């Protein structure tokens, strides 16, 4: 069963990581879901697939009143990101789904109607959560052609979707990266194959290096914190991406 871990708290401002599902069927890629809570509202980042909905929902409910969910942030259009949309809407029909304008007419295949979607322009947007300002920052072509990360300047957390993802062996259950050089081995093949554009990657690394980030939280694998954040950005900047085989 998944569990929600509080990775940041400052009064009524919290980040929950719903991570590392040891009981999900093995043929489904393991995903992390994140919940940003501020005041009376909550935003769910990359809620995951249909198959894991019950375990994500119950993990979320254990830590936060699910009726406070105001929106869903979908970094991109993949099924492991957002195929559970219809289920979240079944629970709360007025949820808003923030996603790239590129996927505005694609995501309704997973659920929702016109009024569900808030299209994010290519340049990004500010998402307000009960007074807190979150920034959807462009990460196009990393890997999806319409792709956004979510930056919380107050918590100094960057939710980075598939960037930073590591496909960890089943016995690696740590929430945070323990040993960067050991960890990054599990990220290399993924980034080489999934990230398609070297230009987009360099641009992202430059922009993100200018942000104050305490934690870089990816959709797969463990969380980078402290010095590991810049370590990761440097590693990524130097990595050759868009290659079929290493």
């Amino acid at each position: 069963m998944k569990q929600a871990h509080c990775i940041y708290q400052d009064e009524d401002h919290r980040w929950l990581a719903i991570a590392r599902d040891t009981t999900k069927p093995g043929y489904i890629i393991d995903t992390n879901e994140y919940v940003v809570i501020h005041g009376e509202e909550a935003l769910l980042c990359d809620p995951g697939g249909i198959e894991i909905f019950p375990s994500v929902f119950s993990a979320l409910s254990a830590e936060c009143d699910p009726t406070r969910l105001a929106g869903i942030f979908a970094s991109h259009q993949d099924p492991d990101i957002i195929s559970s949309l219809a289920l979240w809407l079944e629970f709360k029909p007025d949820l808003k789904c923030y996603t790239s304008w590129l996927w505005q007419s694609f995501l309704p295949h997973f659920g929702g109607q016109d009024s569900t979607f808030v299209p994010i322009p290519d340049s990004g947007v500010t998402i307000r959560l009960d007074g807190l300002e979150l920034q959807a920052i462009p990460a196009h072509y990393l890997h999806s052609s319409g792709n956004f990360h979510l930056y919380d300047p107050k918590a100094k957390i960057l939710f980075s979707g598939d960037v930073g993802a590591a496909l960890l062996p089943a016995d690696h259950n740590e929430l945070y990266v323990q040993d960067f050089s050991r960890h990054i081995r599990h990220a290399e093949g993924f980034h080489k194959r999934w990230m398609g554009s070297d230009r987009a990657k360099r641009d992202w690394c430059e922009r993100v290096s200018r942000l104050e980030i305490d934690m870089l939280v990816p959709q797969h694998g463990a969380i980078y914190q402290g010095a590991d954040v810049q370590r990761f950005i440097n590693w990524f900047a130097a990595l050759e991406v868009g290659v079929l085989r290493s």
Partner: protein
Amino acid sequence: MNAPEPNFHGIAPRTGELARIVRVNEEIKAIVATAFRINLMALNAIFLAKRAGNAALGFGVLSNELRRFAQDLTRHMASLREMTSGSVGSVTGVVQQQRIAAILAEALRLSGDGVPGAREARRRGATRLAEQQVRLRSLDLRLRAAVEETQQLVELGGVLARSAKIEAAYGGSFSAALMQVSTDFAEVIAQIKRSLEVLGKERLVKD
């Protein structure tokens, strides 16, 4: 190590509705094909009767009637088919709603009782499902009524085929040929009757 929780994979979704529609459609297709055959057979019978001349006047009249019957049947089947293809959408809606409801129910169960919003969500889902099922049920009733109407039409076809057999006996030197044609008619109509019986037993929604 956590013990694996029972999950919603164990909940058997109520499928089979779509499969049922497919069966209904296949049966309708078979009847349409047969109706087309009757039409051709009736045309042949009309020519045969013309060649037989005075000896087959009655047979000729019946052949014309059978041809009209085949055309009526084709029309009936076309409207039946329209009904079932419309119901594919409704059935899909129900199947989808059932699946969503089952997964959400599992999520609420895992979350324990008293999750805020749980009752409202359950009620909303149940209402939507009930609405869809009402729609499906009325479609089912319409389909059944249409099948019954077609069955009556086919009864008439059966009477025509039997009369044709009797008329064939008076066909003089053409008698054997006319008899063969009317026997074929009777067989094909019996086949349609069987198909309609199967169709009449199918239900789009289980009671």
